[in-house]
């Protein structure tokens, strides 16, 4: 395995550290962007669907293990996200998806999928309004993550991630 394919695992730890210590400071009514998802989608588009799926599983498993959330829930959602975002890794269009605002829309789609699956396994309660739950737990965090991902598009040193 080449070094650059191990790099995403190394990046995971500082990004997670940032996610759980600094990101809560910019929360809006308890809603925070998911930086790990942005990183995962970026690598899934860069290296392909299988790589994205496996990386999603690794990211999710480590996240569950470290943060104390229900073990396996984030692993499942991030695996599916890695798989879905891998669809956008076609060699001819890869640059287009990574360098334009299409990236934001892919993030938005993946964040909704991620939140829906994660919520299903960690917060199913039939007394709750499903639409409100979808809005609060999936759509709003997804929008926030999408907005934050635009910074990634204009980030000048992004190539260093590879």
């Amino acid at each position, binding site marked *: 395995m080449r070094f650059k394919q191990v790099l995403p695992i190394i990046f995971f730890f500082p990004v997670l550290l940032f996610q759980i210590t600094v990101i809560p400071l910019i929360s809006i009514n308890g809603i925070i962007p998911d930086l790990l998802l942005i990183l995962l989608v970026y690598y899934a588009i860069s290296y392909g669907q299988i790589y994205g799926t496996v990386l999603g599983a690794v990211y999710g498993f480590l996240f569950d*293990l470290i943060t104390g959330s229900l073990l*396996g829930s984030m692993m499942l959602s991030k695996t599916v996200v890695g798989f879905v975002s891998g669809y956008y890794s076609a060699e001819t269009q890869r640059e287009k998806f990574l360098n334009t605002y299409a990236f934001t829309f892919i993030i938005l789609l993946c964040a909704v999928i991620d939140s829906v699956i994660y919520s299903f396994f960690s917060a199913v309660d039939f007394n709750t309004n499903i639409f409100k739950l979808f809005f609060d737990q999936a759509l709003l965090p997804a929008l926030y993550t999408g907005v934050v991902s635009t910074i990634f598009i204009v980030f000048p040193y992004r190539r260093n991630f590879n």
Partner: protein
Amino acid sequence: MIKFFSKIWKNFKEYFVLILLVITSLIILSQNKNQEVQKVRAIAFGSFAVVTSIVSDLFNTANIKSENEELRRVNSELMLQVSKLREYGILNEEFRGLAGFKDTSAFPLIPANIVSKSFSKANNTFTLNVGRRENVKPGMPVINHQGIVGIVHSTSEDFAIVRTLENIDLKLTVKNERSRIHGIMRWDGEELAIINVPETYDFKAGDRIITSEASYLVPLPIPVGIVAEIRNVETEIFSRVKVKPFANLLNIENVFVLGIVQSKQKENLELNFYNK
């Protein structure tokens, strides 16, 4: 045959990998209560929390000024309360002596800082910088000056994970301070509510909710919140009492772990809500 399978693998390998990993996730999901898994998890979060606490301290210094002002205000309020309580205490000692009650009020408070927060809407958890070394054990209540914050879920040598009030896995036995009616309070991913309360029960908006002595986890009257709203659910037999917690989980940084050791005898006798 080999050629056939190799062709299938070549065409569908992405799906095979996905299915394999999804099945692995589901197996892991079913192993959450396994003791070995809990141990591995304690080691993992304990190791990472060492780094988190350093970073967290750096950012917390920025908030110290506002926190100091808040603490000074709380301090002066407490000073006034303490002088009142001293008087009540003297009277109380006399009454206790008369009634022959046993003094059971000395519970140790273990001060702790929150080193990281997992802001999941449904499974909100905090990591504290105290662990087994400070005698923190799973099941101990975590409080601040406003009221109860959560319950210690797991511990490592130096750190502990707390399930906050905004965690669907935490269910607490609470009671209405005015009417003395008990109920089970839980977070449903959206709001904190006392569920399945018969409509005839006496709950009013503004009532103070405290933890109940019936709870084996928190057998002390610790403030939880106030009744914000009472809603009738579709069956019109039960009500749903929405509770607004006193503790603000968004900006909380310093807490105390209440060193209550759960009574095993009581645990065996009573319904254990903590272990679902």
